[in-house]
Structure formats: C-alpha cells, structure tokens
C-alpha cells in the first residue's frame, strides 16, 4: 500500500521515470529512459510530430501500458496519480455536440460517482465556477457543436479542472487558436499556475507564444527525454 499523504510530501514530488520503455504501434517513444523532473509551474513537452508526446501524456495517466519500467507522478503510479490529474486530450471531444457546453462540464464534475445525485445545486455551482475560471461562461449554454475551436478548448479546460486536480496535462491547448487566442490562453494558464498553484504540463509547437512563461522544457527525441530549464 502506498500512503498517499506521506508520499506527497516527499522530495519525489514531480515526474519520475525509471527505465521506461514505451512504444506506440511501431514507434519507439522512450527506450530505457530515466529522469526526475519537478512539475511546478509550466512544463512544455516538445518534440516533432509523431515523437510520442500524446502517448507519453497518456502513459502518465495509465491509458497506454508501458513496455518496461515505471512512471511515478508525485510519487504515485498512474492508477493513483490520476486522481490528482486533470487531462485535456489533443482532440477535444466530438461526442454529443448537441448538448449545451455546461452539461459537458457538469458531467465531468461528478462523473466519478455511482448512483443518482441527491442535490443538483453543488454540481451546478461547481460547473459555473469552472466555466467562469476559464472564461467560458458567456457561451456555456450554447450547444458544444456550435462553438468555435477556441471556445471548445475553454470548455475542455473547464472539464480538465473538474475534481480539483493539482496537475494539468494539456495536449496541444494552443492548436486551433489564432494569435490573440493563443495569448489569451497562455495568460489564462499562467494565471492558473500562479493563483491556484496548479502544475501544468502541455505539449505545443507554438514555442514563440510560450517563450517567457514556461518554467522548463522537456524535449522528446530519439527514445529519450531531456530537460532544459
């Protein structure tokens, strides 16, 4: 048994890879990679198209199996770590586009419970808070399918923030945004790290837009992961 509270306060806070081998299809993403890196602030995971950035994020969440070694996030293996992690996939959901955006966020707020909710109010308030936090209140009651790419991403971000995570894994949060949209989102993310103390790991090819705000860069290349501060 791992004692969550104790482990959280150990110096192992951050991302630890031990002899990790990770493949996706025929692509080798990581080969015997070992690494320890803090995850405070904003961490950019970079690498060329197809390097395996999305796959690595999914491995941290236990969505794809490792071929060897182990990944610990804040000292916890994926199955336990994911209780403290919020995730936004590369392609924001294209399911149920007719439902209002707010329903998507509400579903994420208490989506881990069995049974029917006794009171609806707390869930509604929490969803409204998250939508306000990501600047999505204005279009929260429109069907998700009618929102623009950037607006949908804000809804996806609100979804990722459900469950009060202390780490966010965001897969390409800047894709599909114009210059102004990117600036807005970068400011929003900076705000989340500063105000709420949430660590953020994001993948992006927009190194320019992120210059100056990221705390460190993790470069994924040739089966290895290298950190630059």
């Amino acid at each position, binding site marked *: 048994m791992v004692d969550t509270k104790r482990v959280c306060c150990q110096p192992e806070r951050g991302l630890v890879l031990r002899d990790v081998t990770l493949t996706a299809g025929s692509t080798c993403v990581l080969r015997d990679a070992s690494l320890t890196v803090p995850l405070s602030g904003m961490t950019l995971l970079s690498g060329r198209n197809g390097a395996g950035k999305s796959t690595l994020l999914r491995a941290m969440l236990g969505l794809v199996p490792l071929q060897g070694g182990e990944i610990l996030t804040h000292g916890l293996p994926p199955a336990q770590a994911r209780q403290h*992690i919020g995730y936004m996939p590369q392609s924001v959901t294209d399911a149920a586009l007719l439902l209002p955006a707010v329903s998507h966020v509400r579903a994420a707020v*208490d989506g881990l419970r069995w049974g029917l909710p006794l009171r609806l109010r707390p869930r509604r308030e929490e969803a409204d808070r998250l939508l306000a936090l990501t600047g999505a209140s204005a279009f929260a009651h429109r069907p998700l399918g009618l929102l623009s790419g950037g607006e949908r991403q804000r809804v996806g971000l609100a979804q990722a923030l459900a469950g009060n995570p202390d780490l966010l894994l965001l897969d390409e949060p800047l894709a599909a945004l114009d210059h102004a949209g990117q600036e807005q989102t970068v400011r929003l993310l900076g705000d989340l790290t500063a105000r709420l103390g949430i660590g953020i790991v994001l993948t992006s090819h927009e190194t320019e837009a992120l210059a100056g705000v990221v705390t460190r860069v993790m470069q994924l290349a040739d089966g290895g992961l290298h950190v630059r501060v």
Partner: protein
Amino acid sequence: MFEFDFMRHAFVGAAVVSVLAGTVGWFLMLRRQAFAAHALSHIGFSGAAGAVWLGFPPLSGMVVFSLMAGFVIGAEREGERGVPAQRDSTIGLVLAASLGLGAWFLHMSNRGSSLATTLLFGDVLGIDLRTLEALCGVAVLCLGLLAFLGRRLLFASLAPEVARARGVPARLVSVVFMAVAALACAACAEVAGALLAFSLMIGPAATALKLGLGPLAGIALSVGLALGLSWGGLMLSWVTDAPVPFWIGLGAALSYALADLWRRFRSL
C-alpha cells in the same frame, strides 16, 4: 375503451415500456448507437422465434438473445484513442447471424408467417397479466441499473477520453449499458414489435437531443414523448383501424421533423 381488460393492460404496458424506452433511448442516441438499438430489437425477434419453437414465451427468447448480443456488442474493444473502431461492423455481423438463425427457427416452428407477423409488428392488445409483470420486472431492473450507472455513463459518453483518464471503467460501463439496452429493446418489441421497437427508443430521444436540452430535461422530454406516442398510438388505433405501430412510427418521425423545424425557426 377502458372497460376491456386487454385495453387496460395495453395502456399500462405501453406506459412501462415508454418510460424505459425514453430513458435508455436518450443514452443510446447520445452515444450514437442508434444502429445498436435497431439491431438489438431485430435480434430479439430471432430469439422470440426460437423461444416459440421450443415452447417458451416469446419475451424470454427475446431477452436471452438480445442480452447475448448486447454483451458481444458492448464488449467491443474501444478503438485506441476512444474511437469505437469497428463497432458498426460487429453489430452488422451479429445482426446478420442472428437473423439467419431467426429464419431457421421460424422454419422449424412450422408457424412461419403468422408468427412472424406477430413478432415483427407486436401485439400490444394481446398483453396478458403475466407479460405485464415481466415487463415491469425488466423495467425496474433496467432503470435501477441505469440510475446506478448514470453519472459515470454520462461522463463516459460525453468525454470518453477524459473519463477514462479519471479512472471511469469505460469498458465495464459500456457492457452493462448494452445489456440494459438489450433488455429495454426486448421489452419495447413486446409492445411495438421487433420492426418498430426502436422507433420508440430513437424517435423521442432524437427529438430531445435535437432541441439541445441538457440531460435532465432531455430525458424528461424523451420519456414524455414516448408516452405520448405509445398512448396516442393506442387511442388512434382504437378510433381508426390502423395498427398501433403504424401510429408510433409515424408519430416518431413527425415529432423529430417538428423539432428540426423549431430549431431552424429559432436560428433564423
């Protein structure tokens, strides 16, 4: 018309089935599994034919067959990134195989065409008390399971990847839901017939979704519409001479068309 036992049974049976169809149908449409609903009720038809051949009540055969199919369809591996990779092919092949079996059962039972007609178009006026009890049992079981599953099912349907990342057992949820859908289809087929069972599941739910309602309002409207369709169908077929499924099928398409018009009108 309520002085007759068979009419009272029909109305109660239609009500039970409508509540079930409206609720399960809403989730089916949300998950874009209309084809599954269609297939499950047809598969139930084969089961019913088999049951009659072996001397069991048709409902039991429908339940057994659609449940088995439901497990096969639900257990379909999620595609690598949450994309249901081959679901439609699986459903199509399961459907083809069981319809083949159904043809064989019909042939063996020696009651070919009359039996087929009853099973395909339903016999809501022939519901007896025992069938009614069975329908109620199925409905309570399904709605109970759905209530238990509800929030995880909703999360997994709206944002499959995010739900899996947070630890929702997507595969388990999907299998249990398909089993519930299979049972619901069998129950619907009892009232509307195998051919039109899914009209009661799909029509009201599609209308509710088309209007862009959230889950609670959407399910409520879907159930209300299903009730309206089946009761309306019963009354109209009492007054006119047309069979109940005719009115249900027509009403389902009509309500969807109206919802579509309403949306267009609103967005002008």
